[in-house]
């Protein structure tokens, strides 16, 4: 499965378009991590716990997108975009979407 955020893959032709595939995941913060983050808010610096948390949930959104692409029979997802929005206080939605295609 080729996943790329380019519209064209060099050297490959698009045979068939399947339209948009997407995946999302909503995560809430974890109390333990929140306390650490509160401390870091005084000292400044990287919040490793949050970086990991967001990365995990983004990976989940990404995996869901790939599942959808596989289900329609695509072998590549092009023009992938990520987006983040906060739905409620303390929760974030991570969203990944792209175009499923069959490449030669």
């Amino acid at each position: 499965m080729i996943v790329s955020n380019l519209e064209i893959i060099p050297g490959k032709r698009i045979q068939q378009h399947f339209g948009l595939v997407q995946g999302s995941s909503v995560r809430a913060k974890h109390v333990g991590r929140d306390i650490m983050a509160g401390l870091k808010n005084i000292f400044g610096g990287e919040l490793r716990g949050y970086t990991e948390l967001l990365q995990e949930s983004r990976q989940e959104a990404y995996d869901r997108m790939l599942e959808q692409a596989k289900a329609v029979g695509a072998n590549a997802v092009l023009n992938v975009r990520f987006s983040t929005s906060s739905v409620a206080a303390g929760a974030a939605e991570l969203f990944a979407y792209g175009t499923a295609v069959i490449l030669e």
Partner: protein
Amino acid sequence: MIDLIILISLLALGYGFGQYAEKKHYTSIRKRELILRSVPVVASKIPPQGKPNYDSQLVSGSVVVSVDYFKRFVAGLKSLFGGRITSYETLLDRARREAILRVKREAKDMGAEMVFNIKLETASIHKGRGNGIGSVEVLAYGTALIPN
């Protein structure tokens, strides 16, 4: 009185650790930027034509950074008068450069020659309490072109 002492000690702690952390982070960023200069990151959408022997792979890097107490306090004062808030500028600058460095690191580990169509996405988290921005997440992603 107690409140004042707590505030002052928080400011002092924030100032001390914050300055130290920022300085350390900048030194490390500069060092890694020099090392990873061999992997150019390009914002162009169109991949190089005429050289079709590339594999492409999505790479991403993200970082969550927080501003310290002192800088948030200063930014709060600044927002009364308006003007540039340099303390947040350096925060975002650090976050973006760090995210791009992580993309480059991942691309280099894959043996990529360059990274195309880089996109940067910024989200502010930890909005809950008060109106302080607190921490930001920056995500950078792009397509790594790996010669095969």
